[in-house]
């Protein structure tokens, strides 16, 4: 029994210990409103998703809702469109995470140096992360990627590049926008790691005659590792859920070329109204996320140990 299940279900916890129990509940009181609210709006809906996934439920047939067991899971897993969405999600997430991590580390290293206007540059660099993703996606789709009037083709025209980005390279187009948005996130986390290095140790390494590269690979990189891991794992979890950019730029197309899992489920639910199959796909996504999340939590919890 974990604390949260005990605190949400007081009636199921009739153990005596009256003295401490009253005191414990008094101490728990401040926690309860927040905890119950979050459970009500996240956990209970998820349990309903599991329930729907076992039904042949379709919003267009109000009388539907018959129990079909695991049939929806079978249908979804055999659906080539679902498999395509899984592949797209993996490609999209992995590429974006790798690109934004590499760029983020490089930019953080630059920003860790002293130069005039460092604060301004930092402010400029974090801005892509702040721009409303839906607006950013439309902006890229029109002003940047347009085959005739787009800035990208204009900037690359000296190199003979003239392509219809969204039609010819749909997945790459999405990856570029996401990388632009997520690089600042990675940069901020890595920069915080760089700046939390003990100046004494770096000074000592210098005094002992360590070369810059040795200092970097032996001291800085091991110190940064946990920050990079944290950035990668949090970034993956958010990027797997990408929806705005796909909705705005490609609508999952052309064909199904950029349909990722969130967009697939959205289409299944709100275009095909097939709630049963959409729910089953949702549950599969959660199971996959839990696997990633287990690693994520381990990393977060390591950092958390150090800080407390």
């Amino acid at each position, binding site marked *: 029994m974990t604390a949260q299940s005990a605190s949400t279900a007081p009636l199921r916890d009739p153990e005596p210990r009256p003295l401490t129990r009253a005191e414990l509940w008094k101490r*728990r009181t401040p926690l309860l409103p*927040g905890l119950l609210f979050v459970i009500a709006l996240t956990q209970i809906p*998820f349990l309903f998703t599991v329930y729907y996934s076992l039904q042949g439920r379709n919003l267009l047939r109000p009388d539907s809702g018959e129990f079909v067991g695991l049939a929806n899971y079978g249908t979804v897993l055999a659906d080539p469109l679902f498999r395509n969405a899984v592949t797209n999600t993996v490609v999209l997430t992995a590429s974006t995470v790798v690109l934004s991590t590499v760029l983020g580390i490089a*930019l953080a290293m630059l920003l860790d140096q002293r130069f005039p206007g460092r604060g301004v540059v930092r402010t400029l660099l974090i801005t892509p992360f702040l*721009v409303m993703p839906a607006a950013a996606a*439309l902006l890229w789709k029109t002003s940047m990627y347009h085959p005739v009037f787009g800035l990208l083709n204009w900037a690359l025209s000296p190199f003979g590049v003239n392509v219809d980005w969204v039609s010819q390279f749909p997945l790459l187009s999405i990856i570029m926008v996401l990388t632009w948005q997520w690089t600042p996130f990675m940069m*901020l986390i890595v920069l915080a*790691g760089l700046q939390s290095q003990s100046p004494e140790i770096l000074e000592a390494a210098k005094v002992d005659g360590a070369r810059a590269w040795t200092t970097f690979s032996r001291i800085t990189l091991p110190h940064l590792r946990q920050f990079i891991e*944290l950035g990668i794992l949090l970034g993956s979890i958010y990027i797997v859920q990408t929806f705005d950019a796909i909705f705005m730029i490609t609508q999952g197309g052309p064909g199904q070329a950029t349909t990722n899992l969130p967009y697939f489920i959205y289409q299944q639910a709100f275009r095909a109204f097939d709630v049963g199959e959409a729910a089953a796909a949702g549950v599969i996504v959660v199971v996959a996320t839990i696997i990633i999340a287990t690693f994520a939590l381990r990393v977060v919890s390591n950092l958390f140990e150090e*800080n407390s």
Partner: protein
Amino acid sequence: MTTAVAVPTETSRTAGTRARRRQRRRPSRHPDRPRMSVAGILAWGAGLLFFFPVLWMFTTGFKQEAEASTDPPTFLFLPTLDQYRAVLGRDFVPYLLNSLTASVLSTVLAIVLAVPAAYALSLAKIPRWRDSLFFFISTKLLPPVAMILPLYVLATNLGVLDNVTALAMIYTAMNAPLAVWMIRSFLAELPKAVLEAARVDGATWSVEIRSVILPMIAPGIAATALICFIFAWNEFFFAVSLTATQAATVPVFLVGFITGEGLFWARLSAASTMAALPVILAGWSAQRWLVRGLSLGAVK
């Protein structure tokens, strides 16, 4: 402003590092100000490159439509407010108000729920507090698509589909875990001795929070609120799934620009600028807290 990180205390510093830190604080007046290096030039280049699309959006909003889509791009033009007038004339204001309602209401609620919870989880030290803390964070890992269908059905049954208050409730649940973690990290930093000294004998937790805790972590609360506001304002998935004409927020307004490509770039840019500006300003002013919020309080 760049050092939002835990640095060793002043006493443990060597004279050399202290001197360097002083230089860094006011580089312009100091004779030994940092010189432009290769790294500086590269960083400036990267910063301008990353910022350029945002700048382009901002400037395009002041163009005429004919200047917005040209080949080669138009860099010099006579600024006009026509597009802003057009967007505001297209009933943009209700969307703005919905966004404002959903973001502010959910931010306030998230803070109201999170402060006592964070208090219980860090200062009151209830048993199994760690489980509860990790429960909160695990909800952030649950993809919205896994909850949207029941929320949609529930909202339909309760008659609150396309209702901005209902949307705000969902944003509250989305942001409360983040707020709990962030506020907890601020509470964990309070010196125990000060807390003990300020503690009023026999005061209830609500009095203690209001009279002792809140004044001490006010900047942390403000930072947390800004982060919550940013996430709520930018949220698109729930907004587009659960709202229609009455409660639609600013990102949903932008959906109207998906079709009719190439026709209304300047107007789109004006609308996008208005949509993005509140969060850009909030994020700039909260940038020393941004990394802490994004890493759930783990990185300072």
